[in-house]
């Protein structure tokens, strides 16, 4: 359960942006998370609610874009989805995914701030 420390990092970053704008209210934060990031999205949502204990972020909305795992398939010659995280091979032809392109994301994309 390290989602709380991750939620606290996000809230710290949001408060930083808020302070830079005269304690402006942060209405929403937008994340991109892949299944290979090691973060459980439900646990993160729960933790984020707990972490938003300052007025500048109270009620802040957490928007999570869940990124599927994809690979650069040498056989298909293009970017393809993998079957699953348990079966890391091309969903089109079954070639094993030696390198993956997406799926490890744990990114803070943007924030909506009331100015």
């Amino acid at each position: 359960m390290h989602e709380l420390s991750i939620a606290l990092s996000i809230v710290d970053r949001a408060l930083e942006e808020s302070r830079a704008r005269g304690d402006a209210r942060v209405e929403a934060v937008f994340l991109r998370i892949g299944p290979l990031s090691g973060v459980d999205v439900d646990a993160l949502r729960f933790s984020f609610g707990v972490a938003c204990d300052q007025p500048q972020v109270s009620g802040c909305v957490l928007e999570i874009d869940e990124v599927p795992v994809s690979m650069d398939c040498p056989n298909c010659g293009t970017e393809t989805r993998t079957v699953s995280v348990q079966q890391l091979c091309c969903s089109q032809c079954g070639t094993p995914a030696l390198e993956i392109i997406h799926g490890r994301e744990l990114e803070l994309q943007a924030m909506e701030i009331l100015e």
Partner: protein
Amino acid sequence: MSNRPRLVEVREHILRQNDVLARSLREQFANAGVSVLSFVSSPGSGKTTLLEKLLSRIGERHRVAALVGDLATENDAARLKRATPQVKQISTGTVCHLDAQMVQNALAEWDLKQLDFLFIENVGNLVCPSSYDLGEELRFVLLSTTEGEDKPLKYPTIFNTSDVAVITKMDLAQPAAFDLNLAHYNIQSVRPGMRVFEVSAKTGDGMNELTEFITSRRKASQVATAV
């Protein structure tokens, strides 16, 4: 005048602070010429026993040290000190993983130039350590024969973010009815191409291969640096 919402682009890794620190650690390790290897696994899969044996074997010809992460006790550090005096315990309290800051703090009093190998034993946990880069060169994930073959499928992320898998307690494979082929299949399924070792720290089976793999990488990287 009413306030209007504005979208501010950030586009950064959420664990940016940890990543920046891990990069700086990796540079420090490279400059000092120390190979840093980390070990992750579930509690009780044999990390400390394996490390004790590796420290003894590799310590015969190289300068070795270890950092040991644990929630509360210093028992693991005490065990590793039987193999080398250079052992430091990182007590994480309630935190379920090591991060780059903890590693940096623990190294403060050591001269890295006096070391050839630094082993980092993470807290016994197959979930949380996967998100934190510690600046290590290689991450080893352990799977013991008594845990069952399906651990890689249950915890794909830790296997996917590791570089090498070690199947431990091979001496118990038969009594535990461990299906070795299935374990290999599952590991390759979540991390295609992964290098896998089979060892028993107790009987010593497979330990030569693993020791050789670790020490020969160092020779190779030294040759590459010299050229």
